[in-house]
């Protein structure tokens, strides 16, 4: 396995291939295993069809009364998890090697840069294909148990389609990493692009006549293929388009890599001074303490996330106003829209109820932001960045809480800016809203972000950064699944209470439910307390 860069890279990916492939394949097998129970009676089957229609905005329900259709629909949202590993691998492929300094050694070999990059890329694509194959085979095995007439070819095509969307985001990550100094920045930006792509794909399923918008998202083309759905099959054109897209982004990434400095970026910002200096920066606010430094570290990513979250919220306000009349008429004949609105806590298509349904995405997005920040904490320890800080008279607890407080400040900043953006948008569009409730809806997302950060810190006490992030992301998807699809599946109340979104409620309509928020605060506080106790005692990674 050490005979070439290709084989060595493939060796590096063996655990993710198996782990990700087996995990995601097993998830599909479990979904199939549940089919006999879910379709136990004609009434149950009809209920599933109804639920599928209700949650079409998450995943399009095609022939949901068949095992393949049901599994495809239910698997829909997992795209967020599936793509995480390729995304991280894409930024690590070249930029990660540069961060570690190992690229210098690699490029000292008598091989051209393009060849090094292509060998690594080929290994990555092989890994994705292997992962897709594992998922496909497990899907087939799961389907066979429920006597489905699903063919092996269809199962493999399902895995291949997954591998293709993974390849697209891997290539985007590779391309983005040519413009960032660090791997983590590239991961953050690509994760943002992924979230936007998923949301943009959802739009056409909720808002009429917006297919053109969704067509801008690669996820749209992934969803065009549904090989497990009988009679629907794979969309060869869409799959080829994804392949071409991946090839295009990869080629651009490799082309840029071959032409830039190793350790440098493709677009240089002008340097301020080239004269050697001995001066010390006296008035830099961000260097005063662990807290201010932590704040400085996350300032840029916070600004981007604020732009995305506050911008999306303002856009929701504008959409709610623009489509108000249309949605009201649609509500008369659409059970799906009615169920969507119920997520926001209302049965009627008032301005607030429509916006309330949209607003359930706000805590999800803030929690996604918190996942990236929790990842940074565990990665910093892994990279040895805490070692010298801990050689100063700073208690470990202050270090952890300083970092956490910075995330807290960032979440408050995002929430307040979201409130301002939505207020301005509602005034500008003339959408009448209860501003007290709008403030409640915007600000009550803060504890949700902090909860995820606290759990991430807790995991970081024992797990490596990649596992921490993967687990946290998986948890987020599970919670989304429980809260957004659970009610339709008549999941027990006790199960639904396991998801934090249950406690968000519908503040835009009913104001803050203090008791519910206190539950989130309490769980977050416990997680942070355990994380602190663990960090105070643990061995710091060398």
């Amino acid at each position, binding site marked *: 396995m050490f005979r070439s860069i290709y084989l060595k890279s493939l060796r590096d990916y063996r655990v993710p291939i198996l782990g990700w492939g087996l995990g995601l394949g097993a998830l599909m097998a479990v979904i199939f295993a549940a089919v006999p129970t879910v379709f136990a009676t004609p009434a149950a089957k009809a209920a599933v069809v109804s639920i599928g229609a209700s949650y079409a905005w998450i995943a399009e329900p095609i022939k949901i009364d068949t095992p393949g259709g049901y599994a495809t629909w239910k698997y829909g949202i997992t795209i967020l998890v599936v793509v995480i590993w390729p995304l991280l691998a894409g930024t690590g492929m070249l930029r990660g090697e540069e961060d570690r300094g190992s690229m210098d050694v690699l490029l000292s070999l008598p091989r051209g840069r393009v060849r090094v990059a292509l060998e690594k890329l080929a290994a990555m694509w092989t890994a994705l294909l292997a992962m897709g194959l594992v998922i496909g085979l497990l899907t087939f095995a799961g389907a066979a148990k429920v006597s489905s007439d699903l063919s092996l070819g269809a199962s493999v095509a399902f895995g291949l389609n997954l591998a293709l969307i993974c390849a697209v985001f891997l290539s985007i990550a590779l391309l983005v990493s040519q413009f960032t*100094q*660090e791997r983590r920045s590239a991961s953050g930006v690509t994760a943002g692009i992924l979230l936007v792509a998923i949301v943009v794909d959802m739009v056409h399923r909720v808002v009429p006549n917006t297919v053109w918008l969704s067509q801008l998202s690669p996820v749209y083309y992934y969803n065009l293929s549904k090989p497990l759905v009988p009679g629907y099959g794979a969309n060869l054109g869409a799959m080829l388009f994804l392949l071409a897209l991946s090839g295009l982004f990869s080629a651009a990434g490799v082309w840029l890599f071959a032409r830039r400095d190793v*350790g440098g970026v493709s677009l240089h910002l002008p340097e*301020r*001074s080239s*004269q*050697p*200096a*001995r*001066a*010390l*920066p*006296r008035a*830099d606010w961000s*260097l*005063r*303490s*662990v807290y201010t*430094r932590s704040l400085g*570290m996350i300032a840029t990513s916070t600004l981007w996330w604020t732009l995305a979250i506050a911008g999306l919220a303002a856009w929701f306000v504008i959409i709610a106003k623009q489509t108000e009349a249309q949605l009201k008429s649609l509500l008369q004949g659409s059970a799906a829209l009615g169920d969507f609105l119920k997520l926001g806590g209302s049965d009627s298509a008032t301005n607030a109820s429509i916006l309330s349904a949209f607003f359930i995405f706000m805590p999800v997005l803030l929690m996604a932001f918190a996942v990236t920040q929790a990842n940074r904490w565990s990665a910093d320890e892994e*990279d*040895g*960045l805490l*070692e*010298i*800080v*801990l*050689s*100063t*008279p*700073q*208690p470990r607890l202050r270090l952890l809480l300083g970092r956490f407080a910075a995330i807290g400040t960032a979440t408050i900043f995002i929430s307040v800016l979201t409130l301002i953006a939505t207020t301005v948008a509602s005034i500008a569009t003339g959408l009448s809203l209860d501003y007290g409730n709008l403030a409640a809806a915007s600000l009550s997302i803060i504890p949700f972000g902090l909860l995820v950060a606290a759990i991430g810190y807790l995991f970081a006490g024992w797990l490596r950064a990649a596992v921490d992030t993967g687990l946290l992301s998986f948890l987020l998807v599970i919670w989304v699944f429980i809260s957004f699809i659970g009610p339709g599946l008549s999941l027990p109340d006790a199960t639904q209470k396991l998801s934090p979104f249950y406690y968000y409620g519908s503040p835009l309509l009913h104001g803050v439910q203090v008791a519910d928020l206190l539950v989130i605060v309490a769980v977050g506080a416990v997680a942070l307390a355990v994380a602190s106790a663990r960090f105070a*005692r*643990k*061995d*710091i990674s*060398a």
Partner: protein
Amino acid sequence: MSSIIQVENLTKRYGGKRGIDQVSFEVAEGEVFGFLGPNGAGKTTTIRLLMALLHADSGSARIAGLDCWDKTIEIKRLIGYVPGEPSLDRNLTGGQILEYFANLRGGVDRAYLKKLIERMDLDTSRKFRQYSTGNKRKVVLIQAFMHRPRVLILDEPTSGLDPLNQQEFDSMVKEARDEGRTVFLSSHVLSEVEKTCTRVGIIREGRLVKLGGIHELMDIKRYEITIAFAKPVPADAFAKLEGVVEVEPLSNGSAVRIAIQGAADAVIKEAAQYPVVSLTSYEPSLEDIFLRYYERDDTAPIPSGPAGHLTMNGEEAARV
């Protein structure tokens, strides 16, 4: 002089893997102590235990009479630290990094800090990621020295420094020693230890195998003398002499290479009985001594107990 660092039976394991085992030593205030060992011997583990970055499985480590784990904050006010593999925020400039650590230490003498920057010839305007390995090391060294700590704990501090800056580092260590500060310096570069340290400890496979003054280590040296004679001489005549470890006849018996442990008096007197053409003596470097300790598999660890009364291998006395 009283001991400022006291390590007693310190043990650390990483799961099933060895870290260090029953390591005991003391470092007197004001001395420069060299901690020697090959890669993976346990030097960094010992240092990270002193810095409370790791939690010991058993034993104790104290600095200035304070337990390294329980009183870590008080201790860190006294310490300047250079880690073996320093990692700092890549996006901050050298100046920002130094300013940040100065703030975390509650402020430092800025005039002294600027002097250090000039001595190390550091361009503080560049980002850490833009620095060469040597310049990164300079930033880390300056942050360790800038608050004039009572104890400096330096893990392979000169790795990556050019000779000029190594020289500057040596003089900074000597100045620290002259000011009565203590330096605990881990290294596998023996010339560095030879130049700066007054005492050394040698660690091997997690166990301390030698502890002594730098000159004492030199005393257990093994000389090599090559003597050329005007005519062939019986090599056996030298083999029986006191201190002679090995005799090798050269040039058909008209020269001998003799390895000697201890005094060379008997060999010189025996050689004087023959017509000597030339005599060449090779001084053992610390490198030789060091290598000798590592090539021996039967090297036993120094038993725990009060420093200064330690015996090694039942034959070589190691004294503090």
